[in-house]
């Protein structure tokens, strides 16, 4: 019994170990006979298959799958890829895509944040209420406050310097976007500024810039 092709499997999947040195045509014949012998063992199963032990081209993989389907009643549902390099590549792509997706979603918080309260989130945050002095918001994404900002906000905390902080009444104690920190130049005694406009803070040239919100800016 040649051990150039070894079939290893369970109820749901099969690993086909192939010899690396044997010429492909010969291998095909052995695969065919192996699966024919084992056909009544596998019966009409839906299986996932992995080929190991030999680098196969896509065409070769297809040929082997065809041979398996012809010689047994196995339904090959999918072919599993055990290649570590491919796995790593897919993992990173997936992570990036998911990150991009989560960044376009946010969380809502309804209510005021008072001194001593800390709101932490991995997603962007929209606060419907005021953030008073002594309160802190920490987010990996953007922070939008529909109200007064008098507290401390850290946006893009995991290093994303494209994050922004927007508020209807921007008077923060301290803001940080990514690694860049800006402190308020607030004069201590109350200066009632009745003409407050919605402002947005963002990073440009390693500085935090604050501008009044208008449509063109957001583009």
């Amino acid at each position: 019994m040649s051990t150039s092709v070894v079939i290893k499997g369970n109820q749901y999947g099969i690993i086909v170990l192939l010899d690396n040195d044997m010429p492909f045509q010969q291998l095909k014949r052995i695969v065919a006979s192996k699966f024919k012998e084992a056909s009544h063992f596998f019966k009409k199963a839906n299986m996932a298959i992995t080929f190991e032990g030999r680098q196969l081209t896509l065409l070769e993989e297809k040929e082997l799958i065809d041979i398996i389907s012809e010689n047994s009643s196995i339904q090959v549902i999918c072919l599993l890829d055990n290649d570590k390099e491919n796995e790593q590549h897919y993992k990173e792509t997936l992570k990036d895509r998911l990150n991009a997706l989560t960044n376009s979603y946010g969380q809502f918080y309804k209510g005021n944040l008072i001194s001593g309260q800390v709101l932490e989130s991995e997603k962007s945050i929209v606060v419907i209420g005021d953030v008073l002095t002594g309160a802190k918001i920490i987010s990996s994404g953007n922070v939008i406050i529909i109200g007064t900002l008098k507290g401390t906000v850290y946006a893009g905390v995991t290093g994303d310097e494209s994050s922004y902080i927007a508020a209807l009444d921007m008077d923060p104690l301290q803001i940080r976007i990514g690694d860049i920190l800006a402190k308020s130049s607030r004069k201590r005694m109350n200066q009632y500024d009745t003409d407050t406009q919605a402002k947005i803070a963002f990073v440009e040239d390693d500085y935090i810039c604050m501008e009044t919100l208008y449509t063109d800016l957001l583009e």
Partner: protein
Amino acid sequence: MGEVIVVTSGKGGVGKTTTSANIGTGLAKLGKSVILIDTDIGLRNLDVVMGLENRIVYNLVDVIEGNCRIKQAAIKDKKYNNLYLLPSAQTRDKTSVNQEQMKKLTSDLKEKFDYIILDCPAGIEQGFKNAIAGADRALIVTTPEVSAIRDADRIIGLLEANDIKKMDLIINRLRMDMVKRGDMMSIDDVVDILSIDIIGALPDDENIVISTNHGEPIVGTNCVSGKAYMNICRRILGESIPYLDLNSNKGFFSKLTSIFKSN
């Protein structure tokens, strides 16, 4: 080797934080390297009095838990390069820190600074115990009021029980006009009751309120309080300085107008 001074009182609101800020700044002005530590966890306000509240990133609890180094948490003062502040946490409470941790922190800092000034919270529980854990000497702040003096007396007892032998008294918010009328205890009365050495007396001065609101310690400026605080700093350094006359110096014209005002 630095000296660890704890500024305590027992009673709240007598002027510990203001005194810590001014003494720290005064000593820095006189050329010493100073670090102020706010040990009132949960109700921090030394940063506000120093005017540094918008520079806080890390705090005392972060340092003790090892989330950051002392250098990252300590904030350099706006005016003096040799003065630093280690702020307290706003969102934790006094159980976040224990005496052993404070002792270790203060002994680490002793090697880097000439003076380590700990602003103690009011009360006699965990916060107080944490603050006095590593202290070499204590400055007890009191006002010339019966309630404050009773609490100061208790504090003196607790400090002695904790082996802090070097204690000095600061009397805050003296109103010489009331003392003259007999409505308020004089410096001598207070020293008699508490039986510890006095190191300074401060008048009830509006300028102090203004200075704490602006976040600019008043020590070293030209008013009575500023001079009094500077004298206290000099006495801490060992100089012996005569006490200021705390009677408000009114010119002739203001004495005249005050006759017409008070009916």
